């Protein structure tokens, strides 16, 4: 068991400030399914941004499809705007190996050619396996490989972190 304590609500406030500083006039928020999508939904509201946020799923571009197969209903991607020429601000809860981010960038380009893609995350837990870096992370932590960190959202819409130790 880990003694690490992460206050998701406090980190969210930091993320909101960080995202605000990254916004450009042509920016749109795109949350990575599922935790990132919750964050983008709330950021869209709290930062009083016009229009709807986007949601993007890594399912159709994952590199572990051969070993894991399709998990459940595959595609949650909903981009209610033109991707072409936009400044895409990707939002995720936890950045780890970078493989999900890679898959999501491929997914994004299936819809058009954005002007830029930037990544902001709640937690950067290190352990990168690809050359991907966030423009903003609310906190950086180090966790053992066997631990899984996921964002949870309660009925009132408040965030909390769930840390599980996976069986070896």
């Amino acid at each position: 068991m880990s003694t690490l304590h992460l206050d998701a609500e406090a980190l969210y406030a930091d993320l909101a400030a960080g995202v605000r500083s990254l916004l450009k006039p042509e920016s749109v928020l795109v949350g990575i399914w599922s935790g990132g999508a919750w964050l983008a939904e709330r950021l869209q509201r709290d930062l009083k941004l016009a229009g709807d946020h986007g949601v993007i799923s890594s399912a159709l571009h994952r590199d572990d499809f051969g070993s894991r197969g399709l998990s459940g209903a595959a595609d949650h991607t909903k981009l209610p705007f033109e991707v072409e020429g936009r400044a895409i601000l990707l939002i995720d809860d936890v950045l780890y190996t970078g493989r999900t981010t890679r898959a999501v960038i491929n997914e994004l380009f299936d819809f058009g050619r954005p002007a830029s893609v930037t990544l902001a995350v709640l937690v950067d837990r290190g352990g990168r396996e690809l050359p991907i870096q966030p423009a903003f992370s609310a906190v950086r932590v180090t966790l053992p490989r066997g631990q899984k960190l996921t964002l949870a959202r309660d009925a009132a819409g408040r965030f909390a972190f769930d840390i599980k130790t996976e069986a070896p």
Partner: protein
Amino acid sequence: MLSKRNPQLNAQGELIHLLSIEGLPRAVLTQILDTAGSFLSVNEREVKKVPLLRGKSVFNLFFENSTRTRTTFEIAAKRLSADVINLDIARSSTAKGESLLDTIANLSAMHADMFVVRHSESGAPYLIAQHCAPHVHVVNAGDGRHAHPTQGLLDMYTIRHYKRDFTGLTVAIVGDIVHSRVARSDIHALTTLGVPEIRAVGPKTLVPGDLREMGVRVCHDMAEGIRGADVIIMLRLQNERMSGAMLPSAGEFFKNYGLTPEKLALAKPDAIVMHPGPINRGVEIHSAVADGAQSVILPQVTFGIAVRMAVMSIIAGNNA
């Protein structure tokens, strides 16, 4: 030794081949329909391709002619980034006397990853699934009178798309049911998904009474069969049935069982009309119905691609 396990499922109960809807649990059918929903949107993207089957070879083995089904399987495989090889077997190796299993062994030596099989003999896809290497997947694209599972699934997708829920529906299947693998697959799927009333409608020569054992209501009167229906699935009347003395004439069949606007008015006002195609206008369906507001025959074709993408990506992701 023969295993009692459903040959379509691995030890974890995951789908590794699609051979028949019969015996598949509701959860597997629902997974396919849900996944198809997500692939439908892929067909509307700027880039209509996802890399799930990149580097895989899909062999379309059509021992029996079919343009539409083969084409939709080809499009589905290509949208998943697979390499697709179409073999017109009817005109090649079997014509030279090669056995089915020898053909499969040869194609396996060419590193096939998936076989999409249509065959006039019921059970041919099962035979192939039992004899191919563990990493190879088989999809039944229609075998004899037995099954046409992807057509059954795309029919279910269409029904769910328009009706949302299966549990309060009356579904009438009309026409040549005895020779129809589509009808058989539809009946199994509708039953598994919880449709309370399934009717089989047609003349005695084409609608056998033993369908009642499958929980189906048999109606030899068209008005009785479609009255109050939410969904009407018309089947193609195969011309060769006429010569087999099973029917007096196409005109006679249309008079009794052809779907006209007048007969359609007996169904619920929001009933949908489906047909697996190709349609015979003026034989089983009136043009005004086929082209009318309640017809969903062309959406069925579009949904068929997404359903076949779902089936191929699900089985390719599961190991034997």
